[in-house]
């Protein structure tokens, strides 16, 4: 396993350095409260990033996840509010909403052969519009019925965090150990070669897009629970944040290469950066500026590392 650890070393060191730097620069960054804030923020981003990792490895993209999160959250709000459904039924409706959006993305991009960029850009608008319609553009307060999901238990972890970590673990195992994961990497590397090896790439790609939608639905539950309310604006911009996190983790936008665990590091790095800068008193514009620089720098470093590993053959 030494190879596997080395794979995470760079990101681990970067994260550690970031934490220590903020610890040195502010009085109270290294405190339980800070970590509680970060831990409460990351689960939704992790869930979305897990799905995004798979989509990017396939050389696709899913721009709709933020809006799908908003729509699924609105469905949860409507289910538990005006419709008066039970919590399990509401949760089921939320997840199904995500799954449906993802499956539609997949069907259009895989079977109708439209670029996933366009399909998911369309879905981004469709889902957001539907979210406003479903919620009548109102934030629905749900309170204690969902709040418990995001509340810390004795172990210091909330059910939301546990679900997110479990999803990441399952994602990493699927990607690295299963037939499905191997096919995903192979398709992202050279789809035609896979097809000519007698494997139909289409169902695999479709499942990946559907799963990305499902995970956005799950993220909606987590996000709604944290705020104790369903906000139709929830998740706007999350798609770009997730892509940034995944790319910081070294997944290639060109497909064929990536790791869920590394995406997890990416999510946490972005969250630490955001929280740390806020504690230093940085204004929103400065935060965005610095985050942007970090994203670009991470990709530059990753590119350099890959080149030095002797990609040049004869």
């Amino acid at each position: 396993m030494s190879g596997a650890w080395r794979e995470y070393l760079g990101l681990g060191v970067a994260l550690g350095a970031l934490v220590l730097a903020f610890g040195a620069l502010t009085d109270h960054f290294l405190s339980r409260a800070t970590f509680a804030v970060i831990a409460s923020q990351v689960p939704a981003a992790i869930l979305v990033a897990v799905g995004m990792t798979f989509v990017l490895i396939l050389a696709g993209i899913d721009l709709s996840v933020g809006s799908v999160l908003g729509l699924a959250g609105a469905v949860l709000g409507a289910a538990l509010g005006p419709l008066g459904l039970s919590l399990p039924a509401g949760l089921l409706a939320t997840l199904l909403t995500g799954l449906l959006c993802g499956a539609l993305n997949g069907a259009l991009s895989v079977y109708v052969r439209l670029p996933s960029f366009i399909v998911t850009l369309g879905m981004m608008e469709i889902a957001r519009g539907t979210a406003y319609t479903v919620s009548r553009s109102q934030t629905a307060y749900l309170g204690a019925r969902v709040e418990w999901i995001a509340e810390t238990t004795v172990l210091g972890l909330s059910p939301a965090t546990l679900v997110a970590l479990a999803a990441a673990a399952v994602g990493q195992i699927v990607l690295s150990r299963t037939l499905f994961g191997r096919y995903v990497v192979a398709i992202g590397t050279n789809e035609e070669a896979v097809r000519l090896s007698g494997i139909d790439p289409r169902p695999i790609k479709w499942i990946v897009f559907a799963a990305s939608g499902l995970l956005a639905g799950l993220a909606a539950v987590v996000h709604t629970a944290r705020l104790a309310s369903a906000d139709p604006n929830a998740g706007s911009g999350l798609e770009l944040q997730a892509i940034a996190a995944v790319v910081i983790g070294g997944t290639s936008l060109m497909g064929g290469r990536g790791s869920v665990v590394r995406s997890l590091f990416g999510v946490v790095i972005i969250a630490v950066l955001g929280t740390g800068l806020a504690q230093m008193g940085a204004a929103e514009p400065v935060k965005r500026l610095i985050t942007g620089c970090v994203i670009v720098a991470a990709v530059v470093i990753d590119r350099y590392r890959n080149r030095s590993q002797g990609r040049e053959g004869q």
Partner: protein
Amino acid sequence: MPAAVLLRAESLAKTYTTPALADVSLELRGGEVHALVGENGAGKSTLARILVGLTKPDAGRMLREGHAYAPSGKAEAARRGVAIVLQELNLVESLTVAEQVLLGAWPSRLGFVDRRALREQAHAALGRVGLRGIDLERPVRSLGVGQRQMLAMAAALARPCRVLILDEPTAALSEHEAERLFAEMERLKAEGAAILYASHRLEEVRRLADRVTVLRDGRVVATRERGEATSAELVQLMVGRDAGSRPPRDARPTPSGEPVLRIRGLRRGRVLRDVSFELGRGEILGLAGLMGSGRTETVRALFGADRVEGGEIELRGRRLPRFFTSPKQAVAHGIALVTENRKDEGLLLPLSVRANLTLARLSELCRRGFVRPEAETAAARTLASRLGVKCASLEQPVRQLSGGNQQKVVLGRWLDRDFDVLLCDEPTRGVDVAARAEIHEHLQELAAAGKAVLVVSSEIEELRALCDRIVVLSAGSVAATFGREGFDQDAILVAALRDHAGGKGAA
């Protein structure tokens, strides 16, 4: 008095993970064709790339007519009069033919491309390589492999050059196209240019080269003047042992003739008009024809990779309702394909040798959806040793292997799957002699084991050595079929040209 040395390389060395070149010195003299031979992986491409600055040597130096020469890339090399046509064509698919030919040197006026001058210059450059009839506004993407090769050649020659480096230039060419290339080489030579000609094809080398340098494992093992070395001696120098001649075809029993696959009237658009043949158990059937005759299209149609418009297919005596509609279906019916272009359609280049070897049967190496690493490694190891794939380890990216070893990996993917029919499209293109002999041997073995093998090749010589029968395609239909006793280069060529005669210079 010996001719002037136009380009001199002294003690060049380059190491990737393993040494690719060590202490290589070479002289290119004006008015000579200098052949560079060696197995794939011997360092020919690395040397060629260093000479035009695409790769930086770790040690050594180069002199261009006595002046220090360390180009930073193709552009600077071109300014110093050194041009290259790479084995891997770097063409921009979306450009037009004219734009591609002059890429990097578009004539312009006030910042706008001067289309008329562009067309005129491109026309002149293309005429030099015999592509005069081609539509200058055609997109590069619509060209076949052979035309692309000639286009790359035209691009290299569009600017005046004193030293021309050709890396495996005839691999994708039909014999007709190759002749055009040779004529152009003769012309440049007569003008006093030096040509470095890297090739596997010893017949060509013997015919064209004034001197031959043999590389083995990154070192120069010999340089011979014209007529000094026989082909057999060159082969021995290249592989470092007596490689033996081609595998004896006759060691294999004559196939029973019981047909496994039979197709009739296969049609698709203008490329396939009427293709019919049958393929027997234990038979190796050759499919010959010029570029654009429908060879690749026939194979792809049989494999379900492209849609078919009409025709009948019979497999193991049973008539199928239609041709396969997907490769998956074809594979499920016991058909396997070794693709024409291993880099684009065959391999997962950045992935390991292991992942590439097991791709087609990974599902069998799983338990409940999980890949069994030991089973996979064992399967890959068995295949790699059975095929003699030379790699540092099974985890080495297949990108780093030589062409011959890459081709073995593509073939190996199918070997322990259950198939009856193996379709091979140019199975030895860009592959060195030793690896080619090994691949031929594997195909013979498969046939001897009762598989039906279809081989497409641009080299009639290869088909003659390998096949029981040769079907010749001409402009999308079968022009002739030859049995072993009737194999005759000229007759095959005449048949191949039958329907292409109508002035299709570069089809």
